[in-house]
């Protein structure tokens, strides 16, 4: 067992850290806030600089516009984006999900068309999977793609689609064979969001971010937009879901929250006593600190496994489950320690750490369901990991 970064990895970590310290100028922070106020997770100025570093596609081979860097390096970068709260609207889905899907099962034309575009940060994809009747039971999705000559006509509805209003394309899951068993009749398409027949309507979440309903009314989609094989969509989708991020962005976020919590505890007096001297506060803080350290180890374990060429399976669900539940504990204990200041939004004088903890209250539930509910994570661990019977 060896938990150390190599000197090169440590140097990369410092390089990324210095980059963000340097580039998060007051002007950039103001730009982030401006987009946030519109419900968008973007930062155009910083995004341009990040594209220049090549870090956004760092795991891709050099000939595809990448840097050929390891999963551990990517994990190091992701941790920093969490720590510094870098909006990842440009690359979160576009590189990680769609870019990797195109690399894995896209046609040569699609690779030639989209991959350089993605590497240059010139295109944004949104992910169109979830429907009003298809959340955890994603395979039951109903949006139809009916063959019409050399095209398909798409009709249906998607919901909880992030950044669709900012995106150029949607990575769309459709049903092409309603007669087949549900997992065997799905097909993926890369649909141009400028196509006629697409109606995008806002769906606002409590965390202040704008998501969307998307209505497809006989949208004509060329066959060349099909990603992967006809009716093999489910298997393509689940493969890309398996190449998941290690979760280090959360590690960075949690480390940042703990630092702010420690600062708050050290400077605050309440009811005649310093919080830092209150044994209950100390114990609550310490329990979170232990769990954040465990999170760090579990996440880098995933990155390490990936770097050995193994595709982690239930290990990813273990890590994901731990992180999602830890996020609840940090939000909840943070609230108790902050007291009434914990409910004050950014902008209020009593707000703590720029409203960082208050914002958690409105975003923490998302961690319980986004990308697969905690119940689904437990099912994967139980069935795939422990071999328990259905």
């Amino acid at each position, binding site marked *: 067992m*060896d938990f150390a970064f*190599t000197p090169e990895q440590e140097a990369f970590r410092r390089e990324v850290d210095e980059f963000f310290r340097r580039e998060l100028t007051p002007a950039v922070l103001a730009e982030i806030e401006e987009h946030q106020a519109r419900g968008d997770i973007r930062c155009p100025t910083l995004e341009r600089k990040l594209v220049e570093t090549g870090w956004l596609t760092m795991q891709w081979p050099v000939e595809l516009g990448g840097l050929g860097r390891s999963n551990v390096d990517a994990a190091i970068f992701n941790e920093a984006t969490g720590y510094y709260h870098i909006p990842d609207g440009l690359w979160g889905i576009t590189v990680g999900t769609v870019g990797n899907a195109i690399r894995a099962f896209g046609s040569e034309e699609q690779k030639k068309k989209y991959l350089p575009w993605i590497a240059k940060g010139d295109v944004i994809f949104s992910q169109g999977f979830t429907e009003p009747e298809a959340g955890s039971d994603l395979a039951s999705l109903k949006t139809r793609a009916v063959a019409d000559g050399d095209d398909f006509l798409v009709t249906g509805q998607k919901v909880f689609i992030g950044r669709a209003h900012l995106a150029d394309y949607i990575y769309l899951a459709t049903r092409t064979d309603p007669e087949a068993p549900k997992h065997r009749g799905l097909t993926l398409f890369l649909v141009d969001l400028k196509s006629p027949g697409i109606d995008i309507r806002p769906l606002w979440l409590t965390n202040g971010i704008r998501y969307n309903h998307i209505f497809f009314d006989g949208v004509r989609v060329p066959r060349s937009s099909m990603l992967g094989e006809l009716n093999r969509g489910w298997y393509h989708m689940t493969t890309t879901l398996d190449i998941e991020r290690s979760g280090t962005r959360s590690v960075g976020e949690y480390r940042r929250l703990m630092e702010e919590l420690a600062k708050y505890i050290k400077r605050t007096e309440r009811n005649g006593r310093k919080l830092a001297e209150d044994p209950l506060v100390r*114990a609550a803080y310490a329990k979170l600190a232990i769990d954040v350290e465990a999170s760090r180890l579990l996440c880098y374990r995933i990155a390490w496994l990936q770097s050995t060429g193994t595709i982690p399976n239930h290990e990813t669900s273990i890590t994901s*489950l731990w992180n999602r539940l830890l996020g609840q504990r940090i939000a909840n204990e943070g609230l108790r320690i902050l007291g009434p200041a914990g409910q004050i939004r950014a902008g209020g004088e009593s707000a703590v750490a720029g409203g960082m903890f208050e914002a958690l209250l409105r975003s923490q539930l998302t961690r319980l369901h986004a990308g697969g509910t905690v119940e689904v994570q437990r099912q994967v661990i139980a069935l795939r990991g*422990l071999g*328990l019977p259905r």
Partner: protein
Amino acid sequence: MNYALNETQAMLRRSIRDVLERECPISRVREIEASDSPYDASLWRRLGRLGMLELGIVRKGESFVDGLVLAEELGRAIAPIPFASSIVASGGLLAGSGKHAAIFADLLAGEIVCPFAISDDLSNVDPWNSRSLAIRRTSDVALVGPKSFVEALPTVGPLVFVTKTDNQIVRAYLVDASLGEVTYERTTAGDLLGSIFFEGALAEEVGGRGPSVDRVYAAIDRARIAHAANICGMAARSLEMAIDYAKTRIQFGRPIGSFQTLQHRLADLTTSLEATRFLTYHAGWTVDQGVDFDVAAAMALHSAIDVAEQLAIETAHIFGGYGVSVDTDIQLYYRRLRAAEVRWGDAGQLLETVASKDLDPV
């Protein structure tokens, strides 16, 4: 970076497991529990002769993580031997002490144990508040006072006694048990913990001039990490047994492991144990780096204590009534996991170590 055991460690684990399967089957565990022996002396000697006990001693060029592999396997087998206390704690203080080289050699050979006596009814792994005293006279030291909760304490033989001196310093001493009065108490786990009372027994500082309080606490922290690894082993085997049972126990026409509630509880336990295991091995690795490991040790052990409690209860519970039947093996693990929660200090002390690092001025 490597989150798996390396090849040597993996081989070590396999060979230890083989030895313990032969030399420490469950029947042997039950036999020792039913006896008046505070530990399994023949297993101890066997492991000593195989050169395994010395894995718990930190040596230049060797990894403490290897000792954790042994500790974890000892936990899997619930081997009734005092690895963390006699080897990691006491042995850790005896190591490199020229004066006590013979005792140290006998200890590692498994000929003797060397119990670690530190707690009493007023102080739990906290020698600053111990009832006992080491009275330093011109040419010798006399120990006065009690120790309780001592693992594997024979009535004769050397033991390490950690206490405050009459000038308020914490020191560790080597003293023979025969100079004191030994009594025993049976625990939840079924083992016998010893109490000993000295009324002016002559003792020697361990290491000659005596290690500083830092060395004493370093030995305690290494023992804590080994103990956490031991808990991981017990917990892992418990979990395995519960999963196997859930796959085969049929009720309502189907294996109970097909019910979602059990699946989710077992998934949660698997997750918690995984977290604890990495915290534990990370703490062991930190020892190898030659840097401070008090916080890492505290994190590992506190996490292990939580896991011990939760997992012991839930895995035994899956067996229903059989979980509390003495004929079933799961209750052997349950009782040992529960007792393990309180063997190396108060959980609050451990949290304090973690909190202090971030919340107190440097």
